[in-house]
């Protein structure tokens, strides 16, 4: 090129280096050291490294009564929690049947004593106790080992979703899309691990190992 652009190259090299270092730092921060490209991957890594505290939560159950989570039951070592809404026809159905299998494993495995399941609805407007009871019946949820409930207030629901890092969006067809997973929560309210839905065996194994 022409002469007006002449001059020492060093300041430019310094600026280029600065840009590269800043971009690497920003990208590393956004991707948890280049291990996670999506928010969901990052959430799972973050929780495994540093458990997320969950506030005490009041929920309404299928029989219409209320209770507090996560510590109210003395014998409970860990909760396997999924978020759902009862009208869901796709993911939540497989989710329900996976919990059905888990419930069977809980009954047959002595090492899993104290591990309980919780299906928490994020759609309290539709998921009245009657709807929750229908869901429980559909999947044969035994109230002693599988809690089907919804947070008692909109504020409690919002806080739970934000503490757990769950994002629920409109799917454009009258339903919802959300980051479905199995969340391992230990009393009195610590989210310690997140497993993909199809890793339910590993989730149970992990929860069974919690003392």
């Amino acid at each position: 090129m022409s002469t007006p652009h002449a001059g020492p190259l060093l300041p430019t090299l310094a600026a280029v280096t600065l840009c590269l270092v800043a971009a690497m730092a920003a990208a590393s921060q956004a991707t948890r050291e280049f291990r996670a490209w999506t928010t969901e991957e990052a959430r799972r890594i973050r929780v495994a490294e540093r458990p997320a505290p969950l506030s005490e939560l009041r929920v309404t159950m299928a029989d219409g009564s209320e209770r507090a989570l996560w510590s109210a039951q003395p014998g409970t070592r860990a909760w396997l929690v999924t978020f759902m809404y009862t009208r869901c026809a796709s993911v939540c159905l497989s989710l329900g049947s996976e919990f059905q299998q888990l419930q069977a494993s809980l009954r047959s495995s002595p090492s899993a004593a104290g591990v309980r399941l919780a299906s928490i609805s994020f759609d309290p407007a539709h998921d009245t106790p009657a709807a929750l009871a229908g869901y429980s019946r559909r999947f044969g949820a035994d109230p002693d080992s599988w809690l089907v409930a919804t947070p008692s207030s909109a504020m409690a629901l919002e806080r739970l979703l934000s503490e757990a890092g769950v994002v629920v969006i409109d799917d454009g067809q009258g339903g919802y899309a959300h980051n479905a997973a199995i969340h391992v929560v230990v009393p009195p309210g610590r989210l310690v691990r997140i497993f993909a839905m199809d890793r339910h065996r590993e989730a149970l194994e992990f929860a069974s190992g919690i003392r």
Partner: protein
Amino acid sequence: MDLPSRDGAAKAIALAAAIALALPAVRHGLEIDMARHMLLEFPAVVAIGAVAGGAAPRIGAAFGRYDRLGLTGWLLASLVLGYWMIPSTLDAALASPVVNAAKFISLGVAGFALRAAWQRSPTAVEAFFVGNFAWMAATVGLLYQDAQAQLCLNYLADGQQRAGRGLVAAAICAGVAWLVARRRRVGLADSPRRRYAD
């Protein structure tokens, strides 16, 4: 590019776009869809930055010492655009007004820096960065289309498909736009200077 009327029109359009983007309702309308977010809002902010750069050439010129051959400007723009193609950064921008502000500022600065670099960069440098952007956008676009699951918590899979196709189109457009803008330099159109040289 240098005609005053065209310049004035660009400034007016950029100002109107900047005012529109200052309205939360407009931002919401763009950001609710992944393709609109990445393929309308991002280029709009970069373009606003570029027009601002054209309106304030002295600021761009003052950085000339740090931007020989336009290297810093082109690199900065590539890095900023690459960063905002990472799915988790889109979620972060939607979740936090601070991150979203950082997105607008960084994209605007990228446009500003690109405009200044445009005055300094030789063809080889431009070809490198345009090519680099094209393969980056196309690769990310193909990855978006390939992904079975939702990559962003806030965007459904069908929007992701459209964004993926749009990124591939953007890659092609970037290359074509550069060739058209630099048609004389790359030899696709007669350059007045070259005619004399012949």
